[in-house]
């Protein structure tokens, strides 16, 4: 294999040899190389296959816009597909693979697609797979899925750590080429807080490719001085390998910093982020993103060996890599001639410079033959370029043997970030490109993105831009200058736009990555898709991972040329984030695995765990669901025992997850009276009351108890699920609806450990630790007050409320005391046979008692539907939901309402969600009578029981119905009954 590595290369360190593999072959490069530069140095021109036709493709650029050289890099969890070889830094042990080819990149079966070219033209998605319709699912879809996409993501988890950060600065400089460096220096010297970000591994941008000297100094020495001074300024933060990918509202910029992606695995610090997602808040921004060199659309312009002229110069000067042995250039502007001079200076033969302009006004004094007024119309070569065919201005063709062709069709300013907030770029005939929009608040463009050419002009412009930006902040500054450098005089040397070589032979590609040829765009126009946005979707031009960085302007030019209008009239498609692809890892940040959402543990979590609880996730909470004892192998063994224990002896349950809200204020009672549908104005001190909250539309929102603990002091509990929602709702009512009321509230959910002590022996147990008299007379049902515990050592809040239907209490103690109080209750309760019970047993007992939860309060029920219509106050003037609750449809007595349901045969079972039908009726929506909202096995009754919302439910108690389960295809005969299966007279509650 021939080595293309030659002398020089400002970025590489020849003492640092790095080995890597490409499609399994071991190759070597140097420290400072990119994967692309080392592949070129090893003579690898063919690196991948194109998406649609599987054509051989090589490296086109030396930067972020690369459409062709997409490789899969790394392995297992560290495998990154679709990585641009031009941006990936080479490290020792790197593994790179070509994509979209099988069995290999040199011989790819898929290349047969090239023969199907006529079928795969513009809009083929809409034409080819249309009929027969039956083919969609079985044939077309699997086929398209297999062909879609480029690289494949890994199924292994990424072991790397990712993080997200905020940064703030006075001036954000985006791009560290000559303009950006000048801006950062100017602002840095003026004392402003500066962040300068560049996507490259090294600062310098266009300066890096500069082989010659700047003024009297070598270019790399000038760059070294500039970067050195920036590093020394403490108020300047330099972010290398950082792509600013989005401009958001309020001057917030998204950026991704590739912190450790360039390191071999053994050098990766696991405690450091692989990538960091930044949100940068900048008071002012200098946009110094440069310009992208445009390809020219001519026949065979995608053959490996065809490369941007500027990229050739970068590989030559920065990496010491020759693009070939005998090179031709095809360019419509004068900057490309610098590439010819640099090639010749390194002894590389430049076979010809083909310039479509008839008399280019240039200072080229090299040896190459200049062919003016000519165009390249074709190339040849199987896997790499062997020759080009030049069409002379007299119409004759000439074949020139070359092994590389440098192309330059002009420069497209990288305006993306100036347009993300909706600005439209402005066409400039002078620059033959779209310029940044003029009114970009807080953003100043400079350098090549603003149409400047040449190091000196860009540097000067950068300094001026920073002075202007800082002046907006009231900071005076002086533009940095490059000592000893004269700004070259502007010369009349207009670039001649060339959107497509009309005499092209063979496919002339516009979008390399999506295989869109000039002929596709013209076909789209003929078929009526000539609007720029339609043409994009119809041809897929600009829709690949490179988002058309090298293709969009050419596509617009072709549309314009064919319609006979200016490209400005065609306009661009919409620029949206992201500028370049951002890894999912960076976007996810730390939110993965157990850190996907915070874990919220009850203050009694440790107590529950010590007692063997099985936990269940409910939102962020981990709740104890049951407490298996030795010998219990099935969850229901434990749940049935827990229920029986509570019904006959006593149990203890953690209810700390219920929402708890402290409410204070002189108008607190009036306020509660307005947020609950039932009366609260006269709730006495020391009493709890069950309350129902409606939404303003008249449906039930949440339920719970609120206790009056003192004058103007209330303690509200909510359901676990709606704890946050209820607080937000209460705040809205207090702050927005009735700011005149004197009421304040705060969440106290995490401040209290709360446990339910339920069962006929509960009073006996609590009497052992509570100092106060809690007899039925002294502390009756719905009593609620602060009590003294453990001989005055602790104060708790005791509530005589019951969800289970048994004699029961809830005791709340400060969270930190929770576990020791629970332990104490277990200890004193031992003689009464106490056992912990979980949310499953809690759920069984509330169904047995006919209590509702959010299975019934599902957003479509009124209090009347739940059998609590009488609670809704008719005396109160106003409360949330009062008027809408009276709507015709909400007071219809035939609405589905709460009723109990059980199987006619005790051995039958049924499922939640089953629908209720009248016996003999067909299964139809019209015949639907309602559905089962909750069900369980009742250990107390010994058979399945359920709650259901059934039309006219309460008046149909005793009726036989069909319980239909459409999913399982089963029917069971059921009987409607009172929803309070246990103690319907509430004798236990008041015992």
């Amino acid at each position: 294999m021939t080595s293309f590595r030659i002398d020089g290369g400002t970025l590489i360190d020849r003492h640092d040899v790095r080995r890597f593999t490409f499609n399994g072959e071991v190759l070597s490069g140097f420290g400072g190389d990119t994967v692309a530069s080392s592949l070129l140095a090893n003579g690898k021109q063919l690196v991948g296959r194109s998406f649609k036709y599987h054509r051989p493709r090589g490296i086109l650029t030396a930067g972020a816009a690369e459409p062709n050289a997409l490789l899969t890099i790394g392995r297992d969890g560290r495998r990154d597909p679709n990585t641009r070889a031009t941006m990936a830094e080479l490290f020792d042990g790197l593994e790179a693979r070509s994509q979209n080819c099988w069995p290999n990149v040199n011989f790819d079966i898929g290349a047969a697609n090239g023969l199907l070219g006529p079928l795969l033209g513009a809009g083929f998605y809409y034409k080819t797979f249309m009929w027969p319709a039956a083919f969609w699912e079985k044939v077309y879809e699997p086929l398209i899925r297999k062909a879609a996409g480029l690289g494949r993501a890994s199924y292994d988890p990424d072991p790397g750590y990712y993080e997200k950060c905020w940064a703030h600065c006075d001036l954000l400089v985006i791009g560290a080429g000559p303009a950006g460096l000048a801006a950062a220096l100017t602002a840095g010297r003026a004392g402003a807080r500066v962040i300068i970000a560049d996507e490259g591994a090294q600062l310098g941008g266009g300066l890096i490719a500069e082989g010659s000297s700047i003024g009297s100094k070598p270019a790399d020495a000038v760059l070294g001085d500039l970067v050195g001074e920036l590093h020394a300024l403490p108020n300047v933060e330099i972010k290398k390998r950082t792509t600013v990918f989005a401009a958001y509202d309020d001057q917030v910029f998204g950026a991704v910093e590739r912190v450790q992606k360039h390191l071999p695995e053994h050098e990766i610090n696991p405690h450091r982020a692989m990538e960091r997602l930044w949100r940068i808040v900048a008071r002012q921004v200098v946009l110094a993103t440069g310009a992208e060199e445009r390809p020219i659309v001519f026949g065979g312009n995608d053959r490996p060996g065809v490369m941007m002229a500027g990229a050739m110069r970068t590989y030559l000067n920065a990496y010491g890599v020759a693009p070939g042995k005998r090179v031709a250039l095809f360019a419509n502007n004068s900057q490309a001639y610098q590439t010819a001079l640099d090639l010749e200076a390194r002894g590389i033969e430049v076979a010809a410079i083909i310039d479509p302009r008839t008399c280019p006004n240039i200072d080229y004094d090299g040896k190459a033959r200049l062919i003016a007024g000519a165009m390249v119309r074709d190339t040849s070569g199987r896997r790499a370029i062997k020759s080009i065919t030049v069409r002379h201005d007299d119409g004759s063709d000439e074949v020139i043997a070359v092994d590389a062709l440098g192309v330059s069709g002009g420069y497209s300013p990288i305006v993306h970030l100036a347009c993300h907030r909706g600005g439209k770029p402005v066409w400039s005939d002078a620059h033959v490109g779209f310029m940044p929009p003029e009114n970009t608040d807080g953003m100043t463009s400079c350098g090549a993105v603003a149409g400047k050419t040449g190091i000196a002009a860009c540097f000067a412009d950068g300094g001026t831009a920073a002075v202007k930006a800082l002046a907006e902040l009231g900071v005076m500054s002086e533009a940095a200058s490059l000592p000893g450098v004269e700004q070259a005089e502007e010369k009349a040397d207009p670039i001649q736009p060339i959107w497509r070589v009309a005499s092209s032979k063979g496919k002339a590609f516009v979008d390399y990555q999506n295989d869109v040829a000039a002929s596709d765009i013209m076909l789209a126009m003929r078929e009526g898709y000539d609007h720029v946005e339609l043409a994009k979707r119809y041809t897929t031009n600009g829709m690949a991972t490179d988002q058309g960085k090298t293709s969009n302007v050419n596509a617009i030019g072709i549309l314009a040329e064919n319609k006979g209008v200016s490209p400005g009239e065609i306009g661009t498609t919409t620029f949206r984030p992201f500028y370049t692809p951002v890894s999912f890892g960076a976007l996810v940040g730390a939110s993965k695995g157990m850190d996907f959402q915070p874990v919220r543990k009850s203050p009694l979590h440790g107590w529950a765990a010590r007692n063997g609880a099985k936990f269940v996730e409910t939102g962020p909470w981990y709740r104890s669901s049951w407490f298996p004892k030795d010998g219990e192998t099935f969850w229901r063994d434990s749940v049935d025992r827990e229920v029986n224990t509570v019904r006959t002896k006593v149990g203890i349950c953690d209810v700390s997850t219920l929402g708890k809200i402290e409410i204070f204020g002189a108008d607190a009672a009036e306020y509660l009276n307005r947020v609950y549908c039932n009366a609260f104005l006269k709730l006495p001190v020391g009493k709890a009351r069950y309350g129902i909250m409606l939404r303003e539309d008249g449906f039930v929102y949440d339920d719970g108890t609120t206790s009056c603990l003192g004058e103007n002091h209330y303690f509200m509990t909510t359901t676990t699920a709606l704890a946050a929602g209820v607080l937000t709702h209460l705040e809205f009512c207090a702050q927005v609806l009735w700011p005149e009321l004197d009421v304040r509230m705060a969440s106290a959910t995490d401040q209290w450990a709360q446990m339910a002590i339920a069962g006929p022996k509960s009073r006996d147990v609590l009497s052992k630790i509570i100092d106060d008299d809690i007899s039925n007379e002294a502390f009756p049902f719905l009593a609620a007050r602060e009590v003294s515990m453990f001989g005055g050592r602790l104060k708790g809040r005791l509530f005589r409320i019951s969800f289970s239907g048994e004699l029961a209490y809830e005791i709340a103690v400060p969270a930190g005391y929770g576990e020791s109080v629970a332990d104490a209750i277990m200890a004193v309760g031992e003689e009464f046979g106490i056992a912990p019970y979980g949310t499953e047993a809690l759920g069984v007992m509330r169904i047995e008692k006919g209590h509702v939860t959010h299975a019934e309060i599902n957003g479509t029920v009124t209090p009347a539907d739940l059998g609590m219509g009488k609670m809704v106050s008719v005396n109160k003037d106003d409360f949330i939901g009062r008027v809408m609750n009276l709507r015709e449809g909400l007071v219809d007595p035939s609405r589905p309402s709460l009723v109990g349901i059980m199987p006619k045969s005790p051995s039958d079972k049924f499922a939640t969600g089953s629908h209720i039908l009248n016996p003999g009726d067909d299964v139809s929506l019209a015949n639907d009578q309602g559905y089962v909202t909750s069900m369980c096995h009742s250990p107390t009754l010994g058979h399945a029981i359920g709650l259901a919302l059934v039309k006219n439910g309460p008046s149909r108690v005793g009726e036989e119905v069909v319980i239909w389960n459409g999913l399982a295809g089963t029917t069971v005969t059921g009987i409607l009954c009172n929803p309070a299966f246990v103690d319907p007279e509430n004798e236990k509650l008041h015992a």
Partner: protein
Amino acid sequence: MSSLVKCPHCGLRPREEFTIRGEVATPRPSAGADEATWFDHVYLRDNPRGEHREYWHHSSGCRRWLVLTRNTLTHETSDVVDASTLKTEGAQ
């Protein structure tokens, strides 16, 4: 949409700290208002191109409800006030 919101109590804070409830609808009708007025208040919302007043809750901050006036076209936020001022100052 705004990336940063100037909370009148906390200063400039990231959008992620806020929860948006939706348009500031008609004022809550009096208890005696007819059903049509209530229907408007509960259900009818505008979707304007241009200035829009919305309830934003500083849910991960001071927990005050705010009224934010923003332009749905330009994303410019022209005003942020504490929502209680709507009623106390009769600004509706």
